[in-house]
């Protein structure tokens, strides 16, 4: 700006009150520093180290906590981003848990027995909601009966029909479950003599 001492003097006069205040403030600060240097016995001198250490430990804990939370957030973000990439769009969907232990009926023929005096009915166990088809064949494979019974789990047989059947028959029950899965159970039964 200028090196003119006259001009500086003029400005300093104009700002004399500010200058005086700054000088006074500086004097107070200097006096306090000089007095402080003589106060080796000031209360709390022994607390400086422990207080700083305590504050440092607290801030370290906060830093560790923030760091851990950042890691967790980062891991969650990675999973979120990677999931659509890693997921196979062709993968077979996994159905809900199922089975007899979850209350669903076991599938299997119950009657007639392997040796029966009378073939008056065919009965089986199986889950509700499934569809069943019953087939009866001779031992040589000739189809004697085929009946789609819907959700029924028992059919009655007429004596006039069964009396014409050979001594040994193959009973087959096909189940189509609600999800489309197919199962077959079969049993050989002989007429008791």
């Amino acid at each position, binding site marked *: 700006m200028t090196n003119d001492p006259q001009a500086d003097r003029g400005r300093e006069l104009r*700002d004399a009150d500010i200058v005086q205040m700054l000088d006074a*403030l500086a004097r107070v600060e200097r006096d306090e520093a000089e007095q402080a240097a003589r106060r080796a016995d*000031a209360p*709390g001198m022994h607390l400086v*180290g422990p207080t700083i250490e305590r504050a440092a430990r607290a801030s370290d804990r906060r830093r560790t906590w923030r760091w851990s939370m950042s890691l967790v957030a980062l891991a969650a973000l990675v999973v979120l981003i990677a999931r659509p990439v890693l997921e196979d769009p062709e993968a077979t969907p996994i159905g809900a848990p199922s089975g007899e232990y979850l209350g669903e009926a076991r599938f299997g023929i119950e009657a007639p027995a392997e040796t029966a005096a009378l073939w008056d009915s065919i009965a089986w166990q199986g889950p509700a909601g499934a569809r069943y088809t019953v087939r009866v064949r001779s031992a040589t494979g000739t189809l004697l009966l085929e009946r789609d019974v819907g959700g029924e789990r028992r059919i009655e047989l007429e004596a006039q029909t069964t009396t014409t059947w050979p001594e040994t028959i193959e009973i087959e029950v096909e189940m189509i479950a609600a999800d489309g899965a197919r199962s077959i159970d079969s049993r050989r039964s002989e007429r008791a003599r």
Partner: protein
Amino acid sequence: MIGALTADVPRPSTEDRSSKGRGAPQLHQADLELAHAAHRSGGAERVRLVERLRCVPRFIAVLNERQGRPFDDTSLEDLVQETLGEIWRRLPSYAGRASLETWAHRFCQLVVLDRLRAKRRRDPNVPIESAPEPAAPAATTLDFDHVYRALERLDPRAAAVVRRRHFDHWEFDRIARELELTEGNARSVYHRALARLREILEPLRKEARL
């Protein structure tokens, strides 16, 4: 207490951010490195920092005496811990524009004043004097604390020039060398700083006269 205080304590972090890239002076580089190293890790730096901060109880004791000893020794110990906690919390924002002791001194002033005001609210008979000596005419109407606050609002380079000129009694040629300015520029920065201080202080002065 600290919560109420934080609004008063200087905000070097904000000033630091605004001053970066403008060639802001960092006059106490060694103190700056010590402060940041001690805050990042323990060890020798922290031991040295503790040594430097032994000025805190001394400053607080002196300030208490200047105020007519409103606090007993137990309260002073509380004040020391409070001030050190605040200093530690703000240490990352220390910019090295003043020595660590000067920076700590300002915290001591603010904590003592803050606690004194709280004490006064409870008991109006407790005197409150932030300007211990009515040395300057301006100080009769204006709190010294206001001047400190005004200095903190100056541009870092301007504040450094004012501080060197008045607090360290340096000549302009020395200030210019340290801040890498021409002597004319140093004078110019100084006079603009005084004008800016007047702008900041004038409304406060009017308020104080009322």
